[in-house]
């Protein structure tokens, strides 16, 4: 299996506008790659959650949006990085229903369910790196 990166774009996440721009780009790329409506909504929504987390909890950061190709199969991967406070209790944050921002606390757990690959690395003081990958469905 060979995973090829077709394109890679770095986008800043410094305000709500940027969250919108990141997810627009993700949606546009998903559509351009021929993702179905479900997969497009899923990856766009997951990207929206993680971008907003990087903004709200991580005090801003950046997203790297990559178009992938693995043995002819199209995919999208987005990596979110911030230098914020990090997540102290990762397990709890991933379990869902836990929020330090009086919100629903469903962003992380929901995003994880919406994508094919989910990766997160965070520790107090080290910031947070989250990355998601969604593959185009083969019927």
């Amino acid at each position, binding site marked *: 299996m060979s995973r090829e990166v077709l*394109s890679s*774009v770095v986008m800043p996440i410094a305000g709500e506008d940027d969250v919108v721009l990141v997810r627009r780009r993700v949606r546009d790329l998903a559509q351009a790659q021929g993702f179905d409506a479900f997969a497009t909504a*899923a990856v*766009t929504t997951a990207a929206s*959650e993680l971008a*907003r987390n990087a903004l709200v909890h991580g005090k801003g950061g950046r997203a790297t949006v990559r178009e992938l190709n693995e043995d002819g199969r199209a995919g999208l991967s987005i990596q979110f990085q911030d230098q914020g406070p990090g997540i102290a209790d990762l397990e709890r944050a991933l379990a869902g229903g836990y929020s330090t921002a009086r919100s629903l606390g*469903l962003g992380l757990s*929901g995003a994880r369910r919406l994508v094919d690959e989910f990766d997160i690395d965070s520790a107090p003081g080290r910031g947070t790196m989250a990355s998601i990958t969604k593959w185009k469905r083969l019927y």
Partner: protein
Amino acid sequence: MNRETRTPLKLDDAELRSRRAYFEINDEDLERLASLRAFGQTHLDDIIESFYRFILEHHESRVFFADDTSVQRVKRLQKEYFLGLFSGVLDVRYVENRLRVGATHERIGMPLRIYLGAYALYLRLLLVKLGEEYEPSLAGMHFRSVQKLVYFDMSLAVDTYIASYVETLGRHQAAIRELSTPCIRVYDRVLLLPLVGTIDTQRAQQIMETVLVRVADEQARVVIVDIAGVPVVDTKVADHLLKTTAALRLIGAESILTGISPHVARTIVQLGVDISAMYTKSRLADGIELALSIVGKRITQVAP
């Protein structure tokens, strides 16, 4: 499958000719540059090494080259770029190549000033090498030709950045245009709130205020919130909808959510958001019917 970096800019033949003329790059310059190819080859490694030593020494440029592999990769590209100066050809393909180099740097977020600083460094390094290799008057002539081409390249880089900024601006404007909210009275005590576009925190607040005031003014009993025009329903949007519903209930109005497409429905479920506090109907028409029934009205078929 390989996709090339898109450059937001194109230069046709006529444009190229006039720009070449403006930078006074004549055939003599190109011949001179071609004759310097061996010189370029000889000093290639040395110059590229000095180049990256400088880049990695400075914090503002170092941050764009996170790891060793990416440095190795750009070094290779940089060598290509460098040798391109001595190709003796200045055609549309050359320009396209240069534009791509500019676009690549713009995309990784490198500020223009850092990029331009690197060109200046190139010229300094080349000036030193030329001075070591040739007697002063010849070195001067060589350097003039190199300088013309490097400045020409710089002009392309600047254009790439500007084109891309303009494009970004357009996208921002499109995002802004998505903001603003009408609230329509569809029937006595029934309001319709068609949401279109992106709902950020500010806008969600504005929506909630607008709708609460209207409901109080009109003594509305039902608000139909149609989200057919909302491209992404994430936890933030869902949270706003739920909070609006709760606030409306406090002033005695129900809310009905309509316009949920199948993929949005599924996304909401996968997110784990519970919207059972709201009435939901997939079609707006069904939402209106439900709203009317809440205010004690009904739509009926009239006999023809």
